[in-house]
């Protein structure tokens, strides 16, 4: 059976579903016999889920119009510089 240390080494792969079937089976066997590691597995999974579930974190943040205008203006200026100076940095 896996040790608790080995279990932690495989935790990410199991949570990300990138572990092979044999590893997965060994991890499942370990957590069904080790209550502490079961808790670690369960609560780490919930940690990821709770962040993924809060969609605002991955949604684009509205860019203030003034900031956007400033950015596009700067790019336009840089475009002029690029055109006249090749690829040198302005």
């Amino acid at each position, binding site marked *: 059976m896996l040790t608790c240390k080995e279990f*932690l080494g495989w935790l990410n792969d199991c949570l990300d579903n990138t572990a092979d079937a044999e590893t997965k089976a060994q991890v499942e066997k370990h957590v069904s016999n080790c209550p502490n590691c079961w808790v670690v597995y*369960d609560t780490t999974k919930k940690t*990821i889920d709770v962040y993924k579930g809060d969609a605002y974190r991955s949604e684009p943040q509205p860019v203030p119009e003034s900031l956007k205008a400033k950015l596009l203006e700067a790019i336009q200026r*840089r475009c002029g510089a690029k055109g006249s100076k090749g690829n040198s940095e302005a």
Partner: protein
Amino acid sequence: MATASLHLDPAQETQLVQQAKAGDLDAFTQLVNRYDGKILRLAKHITQNQEDAEDVLQEAFLKAFTHLDRFEGGSRFYTWLVRIAVNESLMKLRKRRTGKEVSLDAPVDMGDGGDAQSLVREIAVWDDTPEKRYSHEEMRGILDQAIESLEPIYRTVFVLRDVEELSTEETAEALDLTVPAVKSRLLRARLQLREKLTKSFRRTGDNAFAYL
């Protein structure tokens, strides 16, 4: 403002990049329109500061535009842009915390679980419905605080992998780290967050040890 899917389809993205490389400013503006909100969010996550995030947005797109000819197209433009934005964000953090090292290369264990074991202290099951215990705002506050308390190297890896949902390979490329280095940082980030959230979400009362 773009409301369609968060990413351009790769063929469309490649075409816009090619047009922009050939000097088509409108094509580059379309790339800005598509990704500026995502880059602003990402920079805010890493710098934890709105003003810094706005500076990062500006500097990242300007750098991308200036060095567009260096983008070889072996990866997605967005991953390349993320790489620039992450570097700019870390530079901001360095400036703000003068004297304090902010690096993605700080040595950590290589993910064999050994060193990570020291990060597991709280063993407690969570409440099944923490949302009944906390309001939406309180929940968000708890999650924000936990993520803010992570060191930049861990926060950045966690945000790219578990919030932005970049693959491990894309994250490695964006951060110029190896895949094993991303994995070990991600493990430590997840375990540290788990530890912090357990303090708020642990089950209380008679059922707290029901798993034993």
